[in-house]
């Protein structure tokens, strides 16, 4: 597609990168067909092609973001389904990241929106604060309907609603990692921020799986949030700080003991860690180190798939609907490994119709855009229930929470099922069904 940037604008590294992305787009419109918001809203401006076009105009003209442009970019789930569909190789993720940073610089959001986004960025990445927030959410439950009527209150109400699906989780503690005798490999396992509080059982299962296969697991104590949450909220410099911090932490591990992989059990984080090399490409002190970290990042199912895998020890055979998180199938293009692991463990894996469409979770999207998120969840649950599964498996905590709030079928992480099949404990949510 033709572009019209001034030479001075192109001197900026971000702009010149975005210009290259825009030049690859031929405006064919294929992406509209697989975009969740276009499917629901059917407005060009709520499709990837339309958003690309609005971003192009905003960046070319060096215009501050307008409320209309912000509305349509905010409605983007960043599910990246468009990138899987795009024949021209348009890197939408980098373009929309740039647009979000541009919005953060040039547009003042209404106060309730500012407060909400600020709170999400200050709470979610910090396990201590998140635990406290969950307690507040629990006691606020009775007033959520009243809250929903206040400016920005719909989002608060959505948050309280979602938090209720965590109430049965066990208390959390930081996992110590695990050593093994004569290890065949050594990996760092991302603790995650929200996952430490909401899904400790996931990494416990991952550690059992890895050590069972002779892999030593380290969990550096000073590791922080991967930066995905603040990145998608448009806080670019905070995201880069988070990336630099973790690059330092993992580089130290590489230098002291070596790492075969940085294993991630939340695919949303995996997508961003695999992108550290790009995010820090213009930082001379970090570019090389970050590229090395990105090259080491693996989803847990990718890593397990490459191992000589032990056989399962339990009789399985349950019908599992595998829900591929967008960050898994579109962000990381990891498609077959999770399903093949589950099949190898004897589960009957069923593909979900319209499996390429987002469930509406999308990081903080189900808090910020509850109306669209709820419609997508209903659509997803209907499609999942069509294949009549006993269990739903997914590789991303966000999806597990989102889908879990809309169905009575238990939703678990893929590694919990694999671990159980290999002799680990039955996942809590299955205890009530299968125990």
């Amino acid at each position, binding site marked *: 597609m033709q572009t019209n940037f001034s030479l001075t604008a192109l001197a900026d590294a971000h702009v010149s990168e975005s210009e290259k992305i825009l030049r690859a787009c*031929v*405006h*064919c*419109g294929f992406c509209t067909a697989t975009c969740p918001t*276009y499917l629901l809203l*059917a407005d060009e401006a709520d499709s990837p092609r339309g958003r690309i076009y*609005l971003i192009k105009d905003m960046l070319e003209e060096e215009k501050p973001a307008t409320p*209309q442009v912000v509305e349509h970019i905010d409605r983007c789930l960043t599910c990246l389904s468009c990138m899987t569909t795009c024949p021209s190789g348009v890197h939408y993720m980098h373009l929309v990241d740039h647009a979000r940073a541009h919005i953060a610089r040039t547009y003042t959001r209404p106060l309730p929106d500012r407060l909400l986004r600020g709170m999400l960025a200050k709470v979610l990445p910090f396990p201590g604060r998140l635990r406290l927030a969950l307690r507040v959410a629990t006691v606020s439950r009775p007033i959520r309907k009243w809250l929903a009527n206040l400016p920005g209150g719909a989002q608060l109400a959505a948050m309280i609603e979602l938090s209720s699906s965590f109430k049965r989780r066990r208390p959390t503690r930081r996992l110590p990692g695990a050593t093994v005798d004569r290890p065949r490999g050594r990996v760092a396992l991302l603790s995650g921020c929200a996952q430490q509080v909401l899904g400790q059982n996931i990494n416990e299962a991952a550690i059992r799986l890895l050590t069972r296969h002779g892999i030593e697991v380290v969990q550096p104590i000073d590791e922080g949030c991967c930066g995905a949450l603040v990145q998608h909220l448009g806080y670019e410099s905070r995201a880069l700080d988070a990336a630099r911090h973790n690059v330092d932490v993992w580089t130290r591990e590489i230098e002291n003991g070596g790492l075969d992989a940085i294993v991630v059990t939340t695919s949303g984080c995996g997508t961003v860690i695999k992108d550290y090399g790009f995010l820090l490409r213009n930082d001379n002190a970090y570019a090389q180190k970050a590229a090395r970290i990105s090259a080491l990042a693996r989803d847990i199912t990718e890593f397990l798939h490459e191992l000589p895998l032990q056989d399962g020890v339990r009789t399985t055979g349950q019908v599992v609907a595998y829900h591929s998180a967008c960050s898994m199938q579109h962000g990381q293009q990891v498609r077959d490994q999770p399903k093949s692991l589950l099949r190898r463990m004897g589960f009957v894996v069923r593909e979900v119709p319209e499996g390429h469409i987002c469930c509406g979770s999308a990081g903080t999207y189900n808090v910020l855009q509850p109306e669209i998120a709820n419609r997508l969840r209903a659509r997803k649950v209907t499609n999942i229930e069509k294949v009549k599964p006993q269990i739903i498996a997914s590789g991303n905590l966000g999806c597990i929470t989102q889908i879990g709030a809309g169905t009575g079928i238990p939703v678990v992480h893929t590694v919990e099922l694999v671990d159980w099949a290999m002799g680990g404990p039955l996942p809590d949510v299955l205890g009530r069904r299968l125990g």
Partner: protein
Amino acid sequence: MSKIRFTEPNREILARRDSIINDLTRLVDPAGLITSTDECRAYETDALTAYRKMPLAVVLPKTTEEVSAVLKYCHDTGVKVVPRGAGTSLAGGAIPSEDAVVLGLSKMNRVLAVNYDDRFIRVEAGVTNLSVTAVVAENGFFYAPDPSSQLACTIGGNIANNSGGAHCLKYGVTTNNLLGVRMVLIDGSIIDLGGDYLDSAGLDLLGLVVGSEGQLGIVTEATLRILKSAEGARPVLFGFPSCEGAGKAVADVIAAGIIPVAIEYMDKAAIEICEAFAKAGYPLDVEALLIVEVEGSDAEMDATLADITAIARANGATTVRESRSAIETAAIWKGRKSAFGATGRVADYLCMDGTVPTGKLSYVLAEISKIVQRHGLRVANVFHAGDGNMHPLILYNANDPSQQSKAEAAGDDILRLCVEVGGCLTGEHGVGIEKRDLMRCQFDDADLVQQIRVRAAFDPRWLLNTDKVFPLDFRCQG
């Protein structure tokens, strides 16, 4: 730089913009009325992005009644209307005018009825082509026309352009698979043409509507013929050391009376582009590739393939490879169907859409190379060879104005060549704005006048998709 002209917008209409928008708010749901500059900008072009015009406003109606109300209003107040499906036109068919309202059918995307006994499906016009097949596939049925943009393009747009596709060699194009439409005329009246069965009574107005590029009315519902899928289908790749050999093989297959489901052609440039995207296993050591798909029982496919292989070998085919799995078949078609978009990875392009008699393919392919070289550019050829429907992609740099002029001039020369050898300007993409001024190469004035009379019988004030299809200076003579 750019050669395609637009008419000056009607200043009186532009001056009335606010009151027009105010009136429209009473006619459509607020979520279906778009008026801000930023949001209208998303509608200023289609897949011919070299040309752009901001519309007066955009309406996205949800019902035939809303379409009717908008058209009646526009008719009564003299406002132009540009219909839009998914905006995938390569000929600028959905590009607005500044004094026109864009009427998009994207929100009319419901399936209304499926009837397997009588083998039809009724859908709203904004339903995408591929989703029609998706609805009936689980019962072993499909909708035959399959334009490469079928993932995104709408049935309404397919009807407007009489779209074809790879598999139309055997099953025919849109006009052969459409049973009926509900259409809104410019004065707001709603008419039904055709029915749930083939060949309805009276004048074949349905035939007139197909391919009329939104100038006779706006189709809001369509009844489509669905077909039972064959028991098996198998694409085969034939690689040739020369483009002429591949072109001659196509001509010989057609001349022998063999009708495979599809015969698709790719030259070396297209093969490399598509292989990089789809990893379909296309041979990279050949100058031209034919993808030939046959279907039926195994015995039937074997017999047809034996005949086609003999013809291909006789024309110098060096590679013959059958798809061995469903995954491979899907990759082979994904590569072919994504060819245009995938070309975006290497260059900007203008996609031509001329049709020639299959016996002339080799000659035309050689001439296309010469034409494009003469203009100092490169070309990638990927097209529906069995139908003689050519799609040379003229590669250029859209940020270099001189290259755009050269690409457009080369495109004109190619289309003139198609007409000269007994073919036509457009196979399936429509005339749009792109080929409007070349219509005189295809038709003499008497022909054009007659077409314009038909058009004027439906839309006397010339308000529907006004600046498309016919040369701008020709309207007055009608």
